[in-house]
């Protein structure tokens, strides 16, 4: 495996593996199918509970990993475990969460599945990806606009 070290660092290899399993899990779970995601959000129509199993299956191992990680304090490769962020619920956080939900409902895609289905999503998937990137480009300017106003609390 020594040759691998010459082309990529352990962090990069672990990042690639995490991305590969993450994206594959999204494909296997059916979450790249926009009709299933919209079906989950459609509480007034033919509700599809699949996403609850996906979220449950994902949260379960992570619940235990957080306990291990916080007890260790450091990652295997020596990085600090991210500290808990302060429970700040400001305007950008609330408005951003609602906006994200609205976009998620409109097209049935969130960032993870947009990545995982990019190669098979056709022009629609590519257009969504391009629009999402554009939104990410303008987000910092919008955040400054939000923060120039008085906070809620």
């Amino acid at each position, binding site marked *: 495996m020594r040759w691998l070290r010459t082309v990529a660092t352990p*962090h990069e290899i672990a*990042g*690639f593996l*995490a*991305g*590969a399993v*993450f994206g*594959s*899990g*999204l*494909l*296997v*779970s*059916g979450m790249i199918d926009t009709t299933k995601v919209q079906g989950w*959000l*459609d509480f007034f*129509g033919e509700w599809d509970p699949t996403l*609850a*199993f996906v*979220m449950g*299956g994902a949260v379960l191992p992570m619940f235990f*990993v957080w306990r291990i*990680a916080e007890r*260790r304090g450091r*990652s*295997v490769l020596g990085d600090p*475990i*991210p500290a*808990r*962020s302060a429970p*700040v*619920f400001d305007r950008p*956080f609330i*408005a*951003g*969460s*609602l*906006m*994200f*939900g609205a*976009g*998620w*409902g*409109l*097209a*049935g*895609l*969130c*960032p*993870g599945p947009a*990545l995982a289905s990019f190669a*098979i999503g*056709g022009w*629609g998937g590519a*257009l969504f990806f*391009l*629009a999402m990137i554009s*939104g*990410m*480009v303008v987000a910092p300017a919008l955040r400054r606009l939000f923060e120039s106003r008085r906070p809620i609390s």
Partner: protein
Amino acid sequence: MIPQDWIWGLIGGLMIGGAAGFYLLMNGRILGASGILGGLVDASGRDSMVERLAFLFGAMAVPPLLVPLYDRVETHITGNPLVIIAAGLLVGVGTRLANGCTSGHGVCGMSRLAPRGILSTLLYLLGGAVTVWLFRHVLGVI
């Protein structure tokens, strides 16, 4: 819902959680798709650029390899370009303002019982449910 859908959902979910756990234990990082991508887009993550690119490469290039083994791999995305553009912009702006999406806030935040993760998840579920109700059942667009 096809009856076995929940089994595939659970298996895929465990893979997603396993990947997030591996990333946290190995690299000490929270697996959030919008954060990893957004940090590249606005250059806030320039210190970990290659690690982020490696993650994105894995997430984009490996799933298509599974397509031949798996029979249900159609995204069924709408053919309405205006809806797609509006949705993409909202997802891009919203996840960056909220500092997370379904993976960062949903999977990693809720499993840590983080108040921000739980509240963001409730808010984006609310936003999504209202949007589907409005655009599907009232306006009939999607």
